[in-house]
């Protein structure tokens, strides 16, 4: 194990009751020359300053200690349901300084506010929703409907948003899975609930102009921080992190303007069901323009460890794809895969491929093993299956452009299970940010001058 992760693996092994003996060469190993690796092995462990190979030999031959003979599992202490009463200022400080927030202001989850949030579902407060971890090396935290309600309050959500947030919690997927590679996430909502709770599926849907998009996406990350017990450097090891972690690119699919089947219907749900679908990846290339041929060209040269691509397209792009002759998203995806080939030599020159896919090829895992045997000029399609390509339609038809991501679809979760039987619980006066301005009557949102309005005259 390299030295960069020394404390991580030691802690992990101790906590799991599985003591192991480690020696730590310097970091990194990837991309180092054989000379450097030899010096690592012949040199000292940077953690202990002892010769690395002497440590390795000692690890195999030194008698076991009592702790190694009789290991124990270290569990977190159980804590009470409520914090000790305190002033709002002190409690806010406690939340921030304990690492329970995303750094932005939160709403404190008081008894009254949590009780109000719970009116957003019929499910019992003590019902177990799931368990979440951000690495497989940690203790899973179990959470109830009430706990999810506390997170929803912290995120600034209203009871009408709660069914979507519960569906996210039921996915048990963290918004921030820990990886040195810095994962990002994306979530798209389909079905009637988008309009019932006022989500933005149109102009600027991925920007901060809509309460539902903002607080739902944020709640997923507050869940991951708290239920997943995320702590940077301790169990969250992303080298840069990912800016999408703040809100997880939360939006609704623009089913009304799309010429294609909604995404959740592609996944087997009825059109009248409300569903949240989740994606995970790294890269977001925020501007693409042109027909399917251009989409194929972009993904052929898009370096990534993954094999998936998710296009986020304006409704105008969906219309253009239809005009090109693609009757479904799947037709377009199939054509794009078949027309995004690159020479095998070019593929294997990429750092992502030499670092990850080459290892899979050595193990005989397909298609990488076959690709590794091809001549350099043999064409291969790095995205080898149409199922690896997704198309999501969102936006306000102000530009026929698309975003290219290497995000993989992971799961869709039904929201309807969490809806109250009496319908979405709205405030008497639902809280809404201004909707994107759409000119329907020629005024373009500009107040019409009345007789009492002083005319504006040009300055001399």
């Amino acid at each position, binding site marked *: *194990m*390299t030295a960069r*992760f020394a404390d991580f693996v030691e802690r992990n092994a101790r906590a799991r*009751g*599985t003591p192991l003996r480690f020696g730590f*060469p310097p970091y990194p*190993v990837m*991309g*180092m020359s*054989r000379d450097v*690796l*030899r010096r*690592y*092995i*012949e040199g000292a462990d940077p953690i202990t300053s002892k010769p690395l*190979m002497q440590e390795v*030999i000692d690890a*195999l*031959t*030194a008698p076991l200690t009592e702790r190694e003979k*009789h*290991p124990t*599992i270290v*569990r977190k202490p*159980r*804590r*009470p*349901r*409520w*914090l000790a*009463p*305190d*002033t*709002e200022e002190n409690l806010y400080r406690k939340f921030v300084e304990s690492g*329970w927030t995303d750094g932005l202001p939160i709403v404190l989850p*008081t008894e009254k506010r949590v009780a109000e949030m719970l009116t957003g579902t019929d499910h019992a407060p003590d019902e177990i929703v799931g*368990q979440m971890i951000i*690495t*497989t*090396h940690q*203790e*899973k*935290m*179990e959470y109830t409907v009430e*706990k999810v309600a*506390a*997170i929803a309050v912290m995120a600034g959500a209203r009871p009408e948003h709660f069914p979507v947030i519960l569906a996210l919690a039921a*996915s*048990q*997927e963290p918004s921030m899975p820990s990886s*040195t590679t810095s994962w990002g996430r994306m979530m798209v909502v389909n079905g009637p609930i988008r309009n019932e709770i006022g989500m933005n599926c149109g102009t600027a849907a991925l920007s901060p102009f809509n309460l539902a998009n903002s607080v739902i996406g944020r709640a997923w990350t507050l869940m991951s921080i*708290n*239920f997943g017990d995320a702590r940077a450097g301790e169990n969250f090891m992303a080298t840069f992190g990912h800016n999408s972690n703040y809100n997880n690119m939360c939006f609704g699919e623009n089913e009304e303007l799309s010429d294609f089947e909604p995404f959740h219907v592609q996944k087997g749900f009825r059109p009248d069901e409300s569903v949240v679908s989740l994606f995970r990846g790294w890269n977001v290339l925020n501007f693409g323009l042109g027909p399917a041929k251009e989409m194929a060209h972009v993904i052929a040269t898009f370096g990534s460890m993954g094999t998936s691509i998710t296009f986020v397209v304006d409704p105008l792009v969906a219309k253009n794809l239809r005009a090109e002759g693609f009757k479904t998203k799947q037709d377009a995806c199939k054509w794009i895969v078949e027309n995004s080939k690159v020479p095998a030599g070019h593929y294997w020159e990429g750092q992502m491929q030499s670092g*990850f896919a080459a*290892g*899979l090829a*050595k193990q005989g895992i397909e298609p990488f093993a076959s690709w590794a045997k091809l001549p350099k000029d043999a064409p291969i399609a790095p995205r080898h299956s149409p199922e690896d390509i997704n198309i999501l339609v969102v936006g306000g038809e102000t530009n026929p452009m698309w975003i290219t991501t290497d995000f*993989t679809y*992971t*799961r869709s979760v039904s929201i309807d299970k969490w809806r109250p039987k009496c319908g979405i619980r709205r405030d008497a006066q639902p809280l809404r940010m201004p909707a994107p301005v759409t000119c329907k009557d020629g005024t373009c949102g500009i107040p019409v001058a009345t007789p009492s309005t002083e005319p504006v005259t040009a300055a001399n």
Partner: protein
Amino acid sequence: MEQNGKLTVLDPHGQPTGIFGRRLEAQSNPRAILDPFEQPSGELKPMSMAPRLAALNGKTVYLVETGFAGSFEFMQELQEWFARNMPTVKTVLRHKRGTMFTDDPELWAEMKSSGADAAILGVGG
């Protein structure tokens, strides 16, 4: 409830319950490590270490490459170090099947049946 200017709020970390994840099965998709529904649940039992060897002379040591980028080359160098410095130790360099995240019970069985005395897994991270 607010009393004397003080609030009572839910502890977002209150009442944790503990279940540990573990390795993936050999046939698992590598990315299944990130899928909560593929992570086995159940109680983890403490596991003590195997008895240590008195010395490595004449012993067979498996060098298991785990699949992280650069680890194959590192383990090759490790094998060469043993050849140069401890030639009486027999080393066997093997890839762990699948990726760094998956289990390889066939390899562990092979090591037991072939008389392996010890194993070094590397290099992680």
